[in-house]
């Protein structure tokens, strides 16, 4: 088990190196000169050249890539933001909690709503409840986030005036953004839970449990859920990881200073160190979360556990 974890952690390194390289290439091929953006359009060519020299832009890309990677691995140095002149992680860590809160709340809400409804839908297959849930899930899953958020603002902030539409001053500020993020996720989770549950519901061991005299509730909670939930957990983990990097639109619409906002403005300003560090940060988190999900499997499914022993 520990060997497995160590191997997975080590495998993060080559993946990160590749990620960094890809982002390097992408940034290299986008237009815009960081020196000119920092100094402004009317800076003298000498000043521009001097800054380029200082930032290392006169070197070939591959050399810069190696320098950058070396800086990370030897000094844990991710560079400074061109704009704020602060180490990048100072910026990232200030803005990350907002995004983290959004992602955590959204995943919790989505799970609490989606999973039980999926179970109900499967157990009452083709009933009126099932049809109603399925239709509304399809509806929610196909609504674009920006449109849903605007509708929510229109209704709750403008029409009813009960919830704020921008800022992060109180917990109330989180309700609409979380709703925007959670509802489509809940719909997807519901669909997957329903499909899984229906599959499990047909299994012989469910009938065995019934033959023992177990009632419906016990069959669901004791026998079906654990078997049905494994793929659902993967989806929960993936949507959580995805939300960490995918709250941009919601952050922009609700004026929340989160990580997505930071990276987007850094891309616009060619603030390369922020973009790089933000990408590394998010992809590392993503991989760690997926590792956690895989480890969770072992606690649920004994068959997976024995595989970890290898």
């Amino acid at each position, binding site marked *: 088990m520990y060997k497995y974890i160590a191997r997975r952690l080590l495998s993060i390194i080559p993946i990160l190196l590749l990620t960094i390289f890809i982002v390097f290439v992408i940034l290299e091929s986008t237009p815009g000169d960081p020196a000119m953006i920092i100094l402004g359009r009317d800076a003298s060519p000498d000043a521009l050249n001097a800054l380029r020299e200082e930032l290392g832009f006169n070197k070939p890309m591959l050399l810069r890539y190696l320098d950058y990677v070396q800086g990370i691995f030897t000094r844990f140095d991710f560079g400074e933001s061109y704009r704020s002149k602060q180490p990048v992680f100072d910026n990232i860590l200030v803005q990350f909690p907002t995004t983290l809160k959004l992602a955590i709340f959204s995943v919790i809400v989505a799970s609490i709503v989606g999973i039980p409804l999926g179970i109900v839908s499967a157990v009452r297959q083709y009933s009126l409840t099932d049809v109603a849930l399925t239709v509304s899930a399809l509806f929610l899953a196909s609504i674009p986030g920006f449109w849903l958020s605007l509708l929510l603002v229109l209704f709750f902030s403008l029409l009813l005036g009960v919830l704020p539409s921008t800022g992060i001053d109180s917990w109330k500020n989180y309700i609409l953004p979380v709703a925007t993020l959670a509802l489509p996720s809940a719909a997807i989770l519901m669909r997957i839970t329903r499909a899984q549950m229906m599959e499990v519901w047909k299994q*012989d061991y469910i009938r065995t449990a019934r033959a023992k005299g177990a009632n419906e509730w016990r069959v669901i909670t004791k026998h079906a859920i654990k078997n049905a939930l494994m793929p659902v957990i993967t989806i929960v983990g993936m949507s959580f990881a995805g939300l960490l990097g995918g709250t941009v639109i919601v952050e922009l619409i609700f004026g929340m200073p989160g990580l997505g906002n930071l990276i987007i403005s850094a891309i616009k300003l060619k603030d390369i160190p922020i973009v790089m560090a933000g990408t590394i940060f998010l992809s590392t988190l993503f991989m760690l979360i997926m590792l956690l999900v895989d480890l969770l499997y072992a606690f649920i499914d*004994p068959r997976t556990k024995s595989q970890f022993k290898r």
Partner: protein
Amino acid sequence: MNKENPILEIRNLEVIYQSRKRESKAVNKINLVLNRKETLGLVGETGAGKTTTALSILRLLPERTARILGGQILFDNKSILEIGEKEMQAIRGERISMIFQDPMTSLNPVVPIGEQIKEALVLHNSSGRSKKEIDDRTDEILSLVGINPERKSQYPHEFSGGMKQRVVIAMALACSPELLIADEPTTALDVTIQAQVLEMMEDLKQRFQMSMIIITHDLGIVAKTCDKVAVMYAGEIIEFGTFENFFCQDNRHHPYTVGLFGSIPKIDTDEERLHPIDGLMPDPTNLPSGCKFHPRCPKCMEICKTSLPNDTVIDGHMIKCHLFVEVVE
């Protein structure tokens, strides 16, 4: 024993499966009587309605497709098709247990086997056993079926097929049921293990004073274990009698039963080929008129094609065939 009080009586049971516009007649008005401590062998080809009959007794037929059209099932003189679901849950697992066909799939893969056996005891704990007593009983029942109780925290995938079947049997026996229904308990097992499992079941049956229904298509198993035999064909019981009727007095049998016996390969004679019964089981959505077996019957007469034979009973030996109608009359 008290012959007047059978443990199980099935009267005119009729079950169909519905899917879209098709209707499969799975069980067609069957009658069965099982006395206490008796073992009944329910024999027939795949699709004859054996499992459907068994699931009807436990009321575990697939809810959405299956429908019991009529008839009665009396368990200990109580009509169990009429009682509420709660009452039925109290009977399932405690008074009637079932061993399902495939031990590979009938155990929950993510629950330790000890827990799965214990569950029946926990659910039917009317005598108020303590936790310790339930655990002890779980250990006891595991030892009974020949599994070391120390393995109870292991999961089904850690057991071999034969061992899994033992777990399934232990689960069914946990509450010492009055009636055990074993649906092809040995079909999924190796022949070597089959004998072991059968012996064990016979032994446990004696010990628990159970009544048993063994569903099988293997006449060898029937010969080894059963007091009474019912042969099913296309949802009907076409022959019913005692062990002696079937295996000792080789006189009168339904042509289908004759075919079944004929299809057993014999090692002592010099035969080149197997002797299957020609043709296939009829389509349950479109059963033939008259006797359901007539298209395959070597002794088919004109009357067989049009009219359904009555049950002819000679000394408790029932045969549903026109051949024997005159014999009685």
